């Protein structure tokens, strides 16, 4: 059983009418792995996940989850899987407690309610609040609890930290690492490079329905492109700054303010800035779409 892949997907094709959503996706995930599925919005992440759970049917391809075909054995599969959808919707009029009770009942009351309370406590969720009064972040916490409450063998999470504040995002990362330690496999999608880099053991990058690369998380830093605005206390000579590898000058204002485009590691540029009288600095990440375009410059994404 240990040799069986947690997820084995080959040549998955799915179209919505004439619009191709997946064009031959191949993914394999080992048991006990945290696997990040990175891609911009509309790349095919959710479609892949929904095919894996037999919510939609691909036109062709091969999917096995722990060796089971989702179409033939959905019940066995759903027993082993905890799922968090990308767009979580819950019954509005129920309290959180009753919502979770309902989910426990759907799992045949096989869930340890004390563990549910433990997760509720970890995520600082109020059980007595009606779902309609929850913020997006708190709704997401309900989704996380229901996905993890039965300690599934495989966690499939579509954008797990969507809507959560940074502190709570860290707590979710800890919970997912804990799940891995306890033997679970985690498959999560994200469009945030930093998140995948922090959490995943391995990463697949999808764009326009194709896996364009499988990467080690450490390699993702090279994809990071940031826009850096720096203000100086007095006019300075910025020429040495623009000569740092990966740095490109975008604009300047009389030597008192510069906007730089920085690719990859920040170490060199920070060290170069240390020689200047910096009064303020602002750092913005590019969107994943922009980062992809930059990183794969010269590579046609259309042709794969």
């Amino acid at each position, binding site marked *: 059983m240990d040799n069986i892949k947690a997820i084995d997907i*080959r*040549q998955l094709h799915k179209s*919505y*009418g004439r619009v191709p959503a997946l064009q031959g996706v191949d993914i394999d995930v080992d048991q006990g792995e945290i696997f990040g599925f990175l891609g911009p919005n509309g790349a095919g992440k*959710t479609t892949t996940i*929904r095919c894996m*759970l037999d*919510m*939609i*049917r*691909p*036109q*062709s*391809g*091969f999917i096995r989850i722990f060796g089971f075909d989702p*179409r033939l054995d*959905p*019940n*066995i599969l*759903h*027993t082993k*899987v905890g*799922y968090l*959808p990308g*767009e*979580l*919707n*819950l*019954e509005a009029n129920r309290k959180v407690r009753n919502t979770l009770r*309902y*989910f426990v*009942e*759907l*799992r*045949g009351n096989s869930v340890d309610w004390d563990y549910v309370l433990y997760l509720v406590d970890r995520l600082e969720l109020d059980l007595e609040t009606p779902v309609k009064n929850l913020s997006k972040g708190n709704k997401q916490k309900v*989704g996380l609890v*229901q996905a993890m409450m039965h300690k599934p063998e495989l966690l499939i999470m579509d954008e797990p930290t969507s809507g959560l504040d940074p502190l709570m995002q860290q707590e979710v990362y800890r919970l997912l690492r804990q799940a891995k330690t306890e033997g679970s496999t985690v498959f999560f999608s994200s469009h945030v490079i930093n998140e995948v880099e922090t959490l995943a053991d391995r990463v697949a990058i999808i764009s326009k329905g194709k896996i364009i690369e499988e990467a080690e998380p450490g390699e993702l830093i090279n994809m990071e492109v940031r826009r850096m605005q720096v203000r100086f206390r007095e006019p300075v000579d910025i020429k040495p700054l623009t000569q740092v590898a990966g740095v490109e000058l975008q604009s300047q204002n009389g030597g008192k303010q510069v906007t730089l485009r920085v690719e990859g590691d920040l170490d060199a540029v920070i060290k170069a800035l240390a020689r200047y009288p910096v009064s303020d600095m602002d750092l913005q990440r590019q969107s994943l779409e922009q980062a992809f375009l930059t990183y794969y410059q010269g590579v046609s994404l259309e042709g794969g």
Partner: protein
Amino acid sequence: MFTEFKHTLRRLRGSIIGWGIGIFSYGLLMASFYSAMQGMEDFTELLENYPQEMLAFFPSISEIMTPQGYMDTYYFAYMTLIIGIFSVAAGGNLLVADEEKGILDLLIAYPVNRSGFFLGRLAGYLVATAVILIISWLGWLIPSGSSGLGLDAVQLLKPFLPLYVILVLFGMFALFLSMLLPSARSAAGLSGAMLVINFLLVGLSNINPELQEIYVLTPLYFYQGGSAVVGVDWVSILFLSDLAMILVLLAWWLFTRREIRVGGEGGWKLPNLGFNIRRI
């Protein structure tokens, strides 16, 4: 399956209470009026002077002084239309409303197979409709001692059976349509329209005999109404039940093969029935 059954009943409890109380009160009122009407000797004469077009919609009006004629004219002839609103709305929304809200996406990932999910919801709907009719029946039963109808509990219950079957039939038609049409609202709307057209055909076919040919092919032709007080037409009940069962099977077949939508997907397309799947 049982969880979904309970869940469906819980969700429909507002409708059960609302419709139940409303129809119960109306039944109570109508039952109480029966004895008062018996003393109105000119009433039959008055009714006979009504325009034929109006009388055509109440086929039992000539028997209005009998318990079955009275119950049919004042209650069962148009209860199909009144409670039919609940029936088609609940049927059309039974599964697809959750899909439209994006809730089904999560529920279907639980270890309840689609057939179990379908059956749980269907059972909830069938019980909810039955409970509404039982509450409605109590509206006739409670004043039965003083109403002068002279009918016992079972006799009063009998006309509710064909009413239940016809309501379920139109509800299942809405459920079936919801598997094909892009929204629960369009499925409920179209089935409701079919019910109204069928109801109009009942009357119009009495005025225009040429419409009889169409009317005899419609469900309400097999609906017994208040005359079931004196004996239930089991053949019609079985026929309508069979039709409802066929619609249930079709809806179940489509649901188990359906692509569960999240917002924006799908539309006026036949569902992916799985015939075109190639495997490697």
